[in-house]
């Protein structure tokens, strides 16, 4: 028995070292993110909107948004997309066999007519039943059989005729200047092939007429935890990874791509649960294989507001799906891992994502279980338990608070001091309970992949303020 205990203690020590290494890595990325954001802050407000908004040289953009049963928010979010400040853009909504009134609402609200518009590309997709267009030709709605998110995005790419394509979620809200900001890396450097904007949590903020009018911290602690997570992921991780041109994820909620590169890559992968991650990895792969000079960039100023789950049930569904998608994408592109042919992406970006993000729930959960059970039955030393606690929880708390401070030192979207204080408190508490539960869900996501379980999972949304308004007006 003592041999077994000895092995358990060694396992815990290894996990402790992993926790330290992982958090040290976050610390470095977060610090790099801070310095990069500080350097960028001096230039971010440097361009007035007017000359960009008026210019004939701006590349046109197609905003593509798949919608499946989005009756709560579709009208407002479509209107907000149409009203974005940009010289030339069109909106393509793909109704992916909604069973609610999504299509009818769009037809009625925007006076759409059945159009003869033809696809300009031929990605294979589920059958397109009809295409509807608005009188000003700025809104196109594709009504098709059910094929999933990637299938809908590919259908929209087929109809897009602009050099740039922005993939967004139909239930998200883009800030009015977000297109002008997200397009900037394409204007600054012609080798840019994809750009991601920041996704922020809308829960707690005031939404009027499809726009966020007052930014505020949410009330529910579960949502605050997610705010901290988003800040850590976007302002820390993605800024730093983008700076090293090894950004592997442009969120499906808001990303801008060169249409030619999307077509060359074969569009979004059908059936993928993390089509955004998979596509970006593929874009890296193709560009590296063809030895092109290219950039995939994250910019922290163009904001896309999204509603995050405010119940444990919905959050669990979302996290398990993300985890399954992440594992699948990694498995598909495993050939890039530690492969010097793929440069920093193969040698740092992919291993970082796999070892410190995707597989992290396994050692984390194992560590928590061993520590709790070991302390209860007295087969691990208190020193080992304390070390694990320091490496995992305390170090993690430091990273979480740093993420909130990073927001405060750079973008400063939360105006009220109480918002900052409440987010710092959330960053403190996040590591006690929430992270452990999250690790459990993500671990189950890995098990789902092993068991070949592949469902998108159903999530109910409130449709933030705008959805609630719509509900009242239509019923």
């Amino acid at each position, binding site marked *: 028995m003592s041999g077994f205990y000895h092995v358990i203690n060694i396992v815990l020590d290894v996990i402790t070292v992993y926790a*330290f290494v992982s*958090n040290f890595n976050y*610390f*470095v990325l977060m*610090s*790099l993110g801070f*310095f*990069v954001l500080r*350097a*960028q802050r*001096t*230039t971010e*407000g*440097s*361009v007035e909107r007017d*000359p*960009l908004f*008026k*210019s*004939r*040289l*701006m590349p046109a953009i197609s905003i593509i948004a798949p919608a499946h049963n989005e009756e709560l928010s579709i009208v407002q979010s479509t209107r907000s997309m149409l009203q974005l400040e940009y010289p030339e853009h069109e909106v393509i909504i793909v109704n992916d066999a909604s069973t609610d009134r999504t299509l009818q609402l769009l037809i009625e609200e925007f006076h759409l*007519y059945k159009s*003869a*518009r*033809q*696809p*300009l*590309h031929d990605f294979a997709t589920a059958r397109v039943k009809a295409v509807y267009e608005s*009188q000003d*030709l700025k809104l196109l709605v594709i009504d098709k059989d059910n094929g999933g998110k990637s299938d809908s995005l590919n259908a929209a790419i087929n109809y897009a*005729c602009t050099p740039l394509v922005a993939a967004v979620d139909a239930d998200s809200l883009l800030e009015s200047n977000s297109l002008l900001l997200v397009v*900037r*890396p*394409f204007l*600054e*450097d*012609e080798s840019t092939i994809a750009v991601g904007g920041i996704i922020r949590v809308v829960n707690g903020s005031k939404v009027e007429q499809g726009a966020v009018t007052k930014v505020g911290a949410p009330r529910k602690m579960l949502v605050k935890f997610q705010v901290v997570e988003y800040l850590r992921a976007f302002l820390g991780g993605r800024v730093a990874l983008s*700076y090293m041109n090894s950004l592997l994820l442009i969120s499906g909620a808001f990303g801008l791509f060169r249409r030619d590169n999307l077509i060359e890559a074969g569009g979004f992968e059908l059936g993928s649960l993390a089509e955004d991650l998979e596509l970006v990895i593929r874009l890296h792969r193709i560009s590296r294989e063809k030895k092109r000079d290219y950039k995939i960039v994250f*910019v922290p100023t163009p904001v896309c507001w999204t509603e995050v789950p405010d119940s444990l049930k919905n959050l669990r569904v979302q996290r398990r799906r993300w985890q399954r998608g992440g594992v699948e994408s990694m498995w598909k592109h495993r050939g890039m891992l530690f492969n010097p042919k793929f440069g920093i992406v193969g040698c740092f970006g992919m291993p970082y994502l796999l070892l410190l993000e995707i597989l992290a729930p396994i050692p984390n959960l194992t560590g928590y279980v061993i520590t709790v059970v070991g302390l209860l039955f007295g087969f691990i030393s208190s*020193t080992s338990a*304390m*070390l694990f606690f*320091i*490496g995992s929880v*305390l*170090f993690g*708390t*430091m990273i979480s*608070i*740093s993420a909130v*401070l990073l927001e*405060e*030192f750079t973008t400063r979207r939360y*105006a*009220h*001091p109480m918002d*900052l*204080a409440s987010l*710092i408190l959330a960053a403190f508490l996040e590591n006690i309970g929430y992270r452990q539960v999250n690790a459990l869900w993500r671990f189950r996501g890995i098990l789902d992949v092993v068991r070949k379980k592949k469902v998108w999972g159903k999530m109910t949304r409130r449709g933030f303020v705008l959805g609630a308004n719509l509900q009242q007006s239509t019923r």
Partner: protein
Amino acid sequence: MKISESSRIRVWISITLLVSLYIGAVYWVYRASSGSFYSTARIVPLATSLAVVPLVLVVILAIISTIAKSIRYVARVRAASISPEIRETLASVIVGEGDRTRLRWLAHHHSRPFEIIFSEFLSTFGGKINFELGMLASELGLVKKWRRAIHSRNFLTQKMALANLGRIGLVSDPSLLHHPLEQTRIEAASALLNSGLPEAPGLVFKMLPDQSLLGRLLLADSLRPFATELCERHIPNGIRLNDKRAAKASVELLRAWERWIPIPDFSRLVSERDIDLRVAALPVLRFAAGTEQEAAQEVIDLLEFPDERVRAPAAKAAADIGISATIPLLIKQMRKDGPVSALAAAQALARFGPNGRDLLESEILSSSRPNYALQALEQSLVERG
């Protein structure tokens, strides 16, 4: 957002220093506890220095940040309350009725909101009022401050200083056009153009090819008031030059302005260049070409070009200029080409008035590939209401 090379180096130096400091501190703790015999006595301080000490530091920083945010919040509320008075006093001083002593007091005690409002006034007005504002800026010491701020490392401060000095005609240093940071170059160029220096448009035109598309786009807007002068003196030379980037920048200017300013021999100049430039010049042929015949030949040449990607914009240009001689070529293109080019040809035909639409109708009825004609005709009818 792109950052300058010097900022890039600063970022790497900062991160290296920070990480080295962190590792150094942790190693020092480890060494300091190395006298202990028990491994626990060595590892616990190590772990503490790795995580607990930084945590304490971050918590202190968080407390300071919250206090600082509260102070800023109060300052912002105060600034919001004083702003109407600043605006009112400034406006009345400009028209010669205000209390200058009060204005001086406001400029001294609320310098930040005062400067912001002053800049707003400068960007809103022009002519005589800006002259008055310039005198006032001098009197209040703002000119001196802005001259210093031109060399600030904070771009936003630098930009505001350059813009304000430009608006009161006090920027005349062309060396800033060669600043390492593109944003500064552009801001300096705009300020220089505002200053009224006679050679400014020529100098700014010369710097165009070295800027990014964003820079060229912004400068095109600043150069708009000098379009006639540039079209006469600089753009023909720009296109003629062997430098591809200069030729491209010249054509882009014309595209950005979309003004009817004929450039002597424009079509001939363009047709002598490589295919990329010829395609880029297609949208401006109707504005820049001296005569329709001159433009027609160039468009016909490009409609017969083997690459489909060239024929699509050529079809659009044919419709823009209304070259009816291209109709047979467009019909052929609509029937034979791939989707993008075929649709462009159909859309071009739809713009040739009733004749073009009749052709599309007969295409819909008789062709085995009526889709693009149908789409173009439908769009044309919708556009016409």
